[in-house]
């Protein structure tokens, strides 16, 4: 009965997320209008049959810009999750394998340190040093993701390390590295996929925030956050400029969150046993 809701979450979430992924891919080959072309004659058109989502103050088509903006958002978020996974997971596994060692202590303390810097502060510092840009946004969000995955991995791995099947592997003479790869990692993959989805959606939100304050992708690359920033002064007479990019962000994030929730419930053995 309840499992129906999970399945529904999974499907709705996947469909929403796929729509934006598709939009991003298609934008490489085709958009309704060229987003680099200024067309002042057609500026600030209301949404309609010619311009589905209207045009901005330079006469650029909002629909096309949202398609291209999806690229930026998705690319930044995916790479940032990738950084978090590739650095955070091995650190977490190592910390758990040699728990209470100096290494563990070092990893956990540096995690605490990174946690003291919200992604925005990291971005501010990077921008102050290197100037703004999409790459800096990726690094900032990526760094913030590292302790998230490291902690999650360590926590889950620690509880697995107390299980008897790990003891059995140790009596079979396997070392900590081998046990981490053969026994720990496969058992936390589900958890990582779910958290990865969540961090992906958080990454999209963070990217939007950073480019909104000018710390993310720079012109002429369209991004949802900057579209919103530019729309702000015109919000009283051209609210569509603010509405559509906002909807794009909300729907993408909502889709990813629903998908993540659905996955978690699908993976959760307790829930699966109930439905059996």
């Amino acid at each position: 009965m309840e499992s129906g809701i999970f399945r529904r979450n999974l499907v709705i979430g996947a469909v929403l997320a796929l729509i934006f992924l598709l939009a991003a891919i298609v934008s490489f080959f085709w958009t309704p209008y060229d987003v680099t072309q200024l067309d002042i004659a057609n500026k600030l058109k209301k949404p309609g049959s010619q311009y589905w989502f209207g045009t901005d103050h330079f006469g650029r088509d909002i629909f096309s810009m949202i398609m291209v903006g999806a690229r930026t958002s998705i690319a930044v978020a995916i790479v940032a999750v990738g950084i978090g996974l590739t650095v955070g997971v091995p650190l977490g596994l190592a910390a758990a394998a040699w728990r209470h060692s100096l290494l563990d202590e070092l990893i956990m303390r540096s995690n605490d340190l990174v946690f003291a810097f919200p992604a925005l502060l990291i971005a501010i510092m990077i921008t102050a040093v290197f100037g703004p840009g999409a790459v800096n946004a990726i690094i900032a969000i990526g760094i913030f993701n590292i302790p998230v995955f490291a902690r999650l991995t360590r926590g889950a791995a620690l509880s697995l390390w107390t299980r008897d099947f790990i003891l059995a592997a140790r009596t079979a003479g396997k070392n900590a590295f081998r046990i981490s790869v053969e026994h720990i990692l496969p058992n936390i993959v589900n958890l990582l996929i779910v958290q990865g989805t969540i961090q992906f959606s958080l990454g999209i939100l963070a990217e939007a925030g950073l480019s909104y304050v000018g710390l993310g992708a720079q012109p002429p690359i369209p991004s949802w956050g900057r579209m919103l920033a530019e729309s702000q002064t015109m919000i009283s007479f051209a609210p569509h400029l603010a509405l559509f990019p906002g909807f794009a962000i909300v729907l993408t994030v909502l889709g990813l969150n629903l998908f993540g929730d659905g996955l978690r419930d699908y993976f959760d053995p307790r829930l699966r046993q109930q439905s059996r």
Partner: protein
Amino acid sequence: MLRFVLKRLLSLVATLAVASVVIFIAIEVVPGDPASYMLGLNAEPDTVQALRDELGLNASKITRYFQWVGGMVHGDFGTSYTYRTPVSAMIADRIGISLPLALYALLLSTVIAFPAGIIAATRRGSVADVSIMGATQLGVAIPNFWFAMLLVLFFSIQLRWFSAGGFPGWDEGFFAGVKALTLPAVALALPQASILARVMRSSLLDTLGEDFIRTARAKGLTTRQTLWRHALRNALIPVLTIIGLQFSFLLAGAIIIENVFFLPGLGRLIFQAISQRDLIVVESVVMLLVFAVVLVTFLVDVAYAVADPRLRAQR
């Protein structure tokens, strides 16, 4: 208990020390000389040299680090490269907006999230639960600055209940200040409230499944008594962590939201400083925000120990 607090305090100081080193090194990497930047392209080398001396830029890096840290401990954050005024005065002006804003938002978020989470958990599967969970699902997905723009569009431009931005200053009276901060605080609080409500719900559901809840029921407590006397305090322990984490999100969020409402807070200060390459200001504000985050983490740890006797005994 005292030992526990001391230990956490020590780790707080250590984190701050390392953070200050990281920030200092990061900013030191920046190419260019603040003195020549301040004086413009046509400045005489002698003048630049004199300014460098005045700013203390000629000392060794290590000396300068300790001067910076030592100054901060005494409330002296150095002199702004752009405005030639003490950074501490600039920060003091701005923090009176950012900090109240973050706290206001934290209060709102907690006040909304607790009842929502409790209702959803205790009436699991009901219409109330499903609607609350649906609303939070949406709340989590909405970027706070966009939500802020929608609030402006609706409450300021359409209804004209609130001004679209700006801050009258606390001199205009407490309520004028609070009113100016209300829309920004709501915009900040809503996404966080959604997260908090979800955590509250799942933590409470976990706790309600514990053995000691069944024990309490076997003693003759009603479901309501069990909830108030046993479930809530235990469920609150993980929620505390989230509240602590949220404070840092709220501070960071406040920096962004200040842009939407043209509030002269730390956010405006730091973005101005970045565009003017006023690095000493950037350095100091970042350090201050890190300090705030670390301090809140410390307070949460202490609250944890108060809520959970097992922790008190352990460490």
